[in-house]
């Protein structure tokens, strides 16, 4: 729960904790919470919130702790307070199942409403929640083309130029001597960018996994890893030195 601690901390020089990335010529900031900010358009991207994952399991008889939504929303509040974006794009799998937003407890709904006040909010549909959200501010869409970029949940197998996507929950393993550390990461080769999963109970998929094959030019691929309190950028070739 490092992000939660960071969300509560009083950080002076937040810029030092972030990393700069350029996707299809567009400047972006990868922050240690796992959010992407585009300063030129004041647009904030988050992906794979998987809200109400605990409740989704509870519906099927596994009473997982109900705190995942609360924890994810707290971090999101900190991110929004930090960047004060004009537009928020949530890149799909916003809820862990189709009925997640329908059964969302009122206390959580109010927090989302408070966050969305005074901004545009776009819920991109994901494979977990293809029907869009119910009873929440903002609008739902399958994808968004804006400011020279394409925002969608699943990365397309074609070209991928200017694509910002989620879905795969990328993570990377860094290995030095006999120690290795695996962390969620932003992954970009300068053409396409994959977002780390934002939800607190989401797992990760290694960049070397087959599902990632063909998405990136490995020569220029960089992983921006979510460290305990800052982003660490490591070239793909240097991950397992």
């Amino acid at each position, binding site marked *: 729960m490092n992000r939660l601690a960071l969300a509560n901390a009083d950080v002076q020089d937040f810029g030092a904790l972030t990393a700069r990335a350029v996707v299809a010529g567009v400047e972006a900031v990868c922050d240690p919470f796992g959010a992407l900010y585009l300063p030129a358009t004041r647009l904030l991207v988050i992906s794979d919130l998987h809200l109400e994952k605990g409740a989704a399991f509870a*519906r099927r008889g*596994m009473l997982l702790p109900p*705190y995942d939504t609360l924890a994810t929303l707290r971090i999101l509040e900190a991110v929004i307070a930090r960047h004060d974006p004009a537009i928020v794009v949530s890149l799909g799998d916003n809820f862990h199942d189709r009925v997640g937003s329908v059964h969302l407890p009122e206390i959580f709904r109010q927090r989302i409403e408070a966050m969305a006040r005074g901004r545009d909010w776009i819920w991109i549909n994901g494979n977990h929640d293809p029907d869009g959200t119910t009873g929440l501010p903002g609008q739902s869409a399958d994808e968004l083309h804006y400011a020279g970029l394409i925002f969608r949940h699943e990365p397309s197998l074609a070209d991928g130029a200017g694509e910002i996507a989620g879905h795969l929950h990328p993570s990377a393993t*860094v290995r*030095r001597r006999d120690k290795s550390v695996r962390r969620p990461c932003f992954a970009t080769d300068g053409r396409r960018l994959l977002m780390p999963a934002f939800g607190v109970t989401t797992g990760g998929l290694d960049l070397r996994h*087959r599902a990632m094959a063909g998405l990136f030019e490995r020569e220029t691929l960089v992983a921006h890893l979510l460290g305990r309190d800052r982003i660490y950028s*490591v070239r793909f070739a240097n991950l397992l030195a």
Partner: protein
Amino acid sequence: MNATDSATARPGPLPKPFTDWFAARGWAPRAHQLELLERARAGESLLLIAPTGAGKTLAGFLPSLTDLVARGRVPPGSAFTGIHTLYISPLKALAVDIERNLAKPIEEMRLPVTIETRTGDTPQSKRQRQRLNPPDILLTTPEQLALLIANGEAPRFFKDLKFVVFDELHSLVTSKRGHLLALGLARLRRLAPGLQTIGLSATVAEPMDLRRWLAGQVPGEDNHAGLVLGPSGAKPIITILKSEEHIPWSGHSARYAMPEVYQAIREHRTALLFVNTRSQAEMLFQELWRINEETLPIALHHGSLDVAQRRKVEAAMAENRLRAVVATSTLDLGIDWGDVDLVIHVGAPKGASRLAQRIGRANHRMDEPSRAILVPANRFEVMECQAALDANYLGAQDTPPMTAGALDVLAQHVLGMACAAAFDEDALFAEISSAASYAVLPRETFSRVVQFVATGGYALKTYERYAKIRKTKEGLWRVSNLQVAQQYRLNLGTIVEMPMLNLRLVKRNARGSLGRGGAALGKVEEYFLETMAPGDTFLFSGKVLRFEGIRENECLVSQAFSQDPKVPAYAGGKFPLSTYLAEQVRTMLADPDRWRALPGQVRDWLSIQSDVSMLPRRDELLIETFPRGSRHYMVIYAFEGRLAHQTLGMLLTRRLERAGLKPLGFVATDYSLAIWALDDLGAAFRARRPSLGGLFDEDMLGDDLEAWLDESWMLKRTFRNCAVIAGLIDQRHPGKEKTGRQVTVSADLIYDVLRSHEPDHILLEATRHDAATGLLDIERLGFMLARIKGHITHRTLDRISPLAIPVMLEIGRETVSGEAHDAVLAEAAEDLIAEALGELAAPETER
């Protein structure tokens, strides 16, 4: 069924068919068999303690058999008769074995008795039939009992129950399985209030624990079963292998002794070779075949091998087609293994009782002495073997103590009882309190467990509508729907599968890419594979394998052409040194008179140690500091077992870090712990910055422990077990088979969320409790810190001491413990910057 022709017969309680049967074979029942029968007839519940081969099982069944003879066969068409005797064994193979062994005398005596097994392998149709028409004697396992009592028909099925026989009780009761069984027994007592229990056990340290376990507890009374002691049996002949070769300083392979071990195998009919870990089993097997010039049939048996392969070895063993089997604890329990005439124990036995039980595997005839050879793998183990050997002759016992009933198991049972019928909370509390393991459970804790079962028991109450059990208008708890009961049945049990990956052997084709298919070799823990990089080699199933990668839930490996695996090996199932043996080794170390029994090279080693440094007294903690290379070392001779040492190492490095001494790493063995640092540790301790007393203060089990637990993977693994047993996470889900891999990932994240939002949650309480005695061995560390208070002796040396050699040699061989964090990321990230600035040559040439 064993019996002897010794004339111990006396006019007794045995009815005619039995006396005739014994007489026809020239046998006579033994004194303890008759004593047990007589006392059981008088209505007592009993614990029989006897060595292997003393006719324990027959003794356990005599009260049932004679009672059934007196009752006679139930005439067809009479009212439903439930089972008469329930027999519970820890292994289904054992239940099947007993059925075979018992069927014979029943048939020969033409007793009016039906006997059947019910295990996980019993087909559905037979289970159905058993429910309608139960046998007189049902042989089963703890998990099957839990299933039977969670059924609505349980009251009818068990209403006539007279006897419950527990085999190998000593091995059942110390685990969570024992807790589940204790709760099952409490339920049986309610269904059949007059039932008597009979426990069969090998020798244990605290028989009274077992006797209480067998009896129903009532507040204010001390109820326990009666005790029947069998004969003590012939003393085993145990020797320590006296090798001409140089005994290594460290390591576990005992490679030096292979020619002598091979010679011993040649000189016996069948030898069982026991080792402590799977990796040792692999290594030993490979070494033996390297020198197996006569190609003697030598086989390998451990829990990670493919089941089919294990069954093949077992069958060959039973038919006496093998000359030797290399095995781990999977062969520990009492199945008859053919004609074993020698047990070879490679590596130290780690516990005196474990050694005694393993030796019991040789020669099932109790009046002939068993033969065993101990093969220590290094010099410390020579002392440990000698201590174990002394203990065996003294009859010392160090079986683990019984632990308080676990809360996760209780949660599982509560759900099971709701599946059987709606229950009243007070009545169920009274029932579970009658089990010795749960006799002191506070009422309030029980309520929290019930709440947990119902809605997860969270302070944030958002799951009322998803509750698994609900209170009816009458105030009874009942299951919400049929799916809950189905889920319960699928998740039942306390043995949680570790996330395992299948090992598949693949070939590289001409273009260097990996083929598909290939033979399945067995399973390995995912945790082991996480430490490996493609190209690393390791030993498994007697082969040196090259790790290629992971594809879905399979681990792909190819045949390696080297003989020397790089990664030490797959170390599943390691026992720590028992407290009792540790104490014995400390005593031996402090008493030169006892060194006489040790080989010359070991004696010399100890003498030089006392010249250049010192040997600690029994209650003293010796710490040596010395420089080596550019580093400063500290070696702590705590003798508390590897797990406790690892925990100590984690906590001490945190403290040294805080003191600014720059610790770099540590490595732990069963006997000692070595920590190395950039700063001069010895000088710092002399200047009392920090003082050793302060460094080793018991308060390290406070905040430091808490802070470390936050990150510890060991606690996460413990949490996962608790969560599965308690029913929070499914082991399997109807129609949706989860792989162990997926369950682990989410359990870790759930742990993090729960810990930061509700640290007092009952499941975290259960986890901490488990960790204290399990993987972290905090309990033992606590005892040690209390013991050494004011007894720490520090020696500053200018070089490594003889006693330090074993642990120092482990550095580099063992992976260095310590938790890797952002420092690793920072290092990698700096590479990138340096490279970008053109300061770093190409990484390939740098390495």
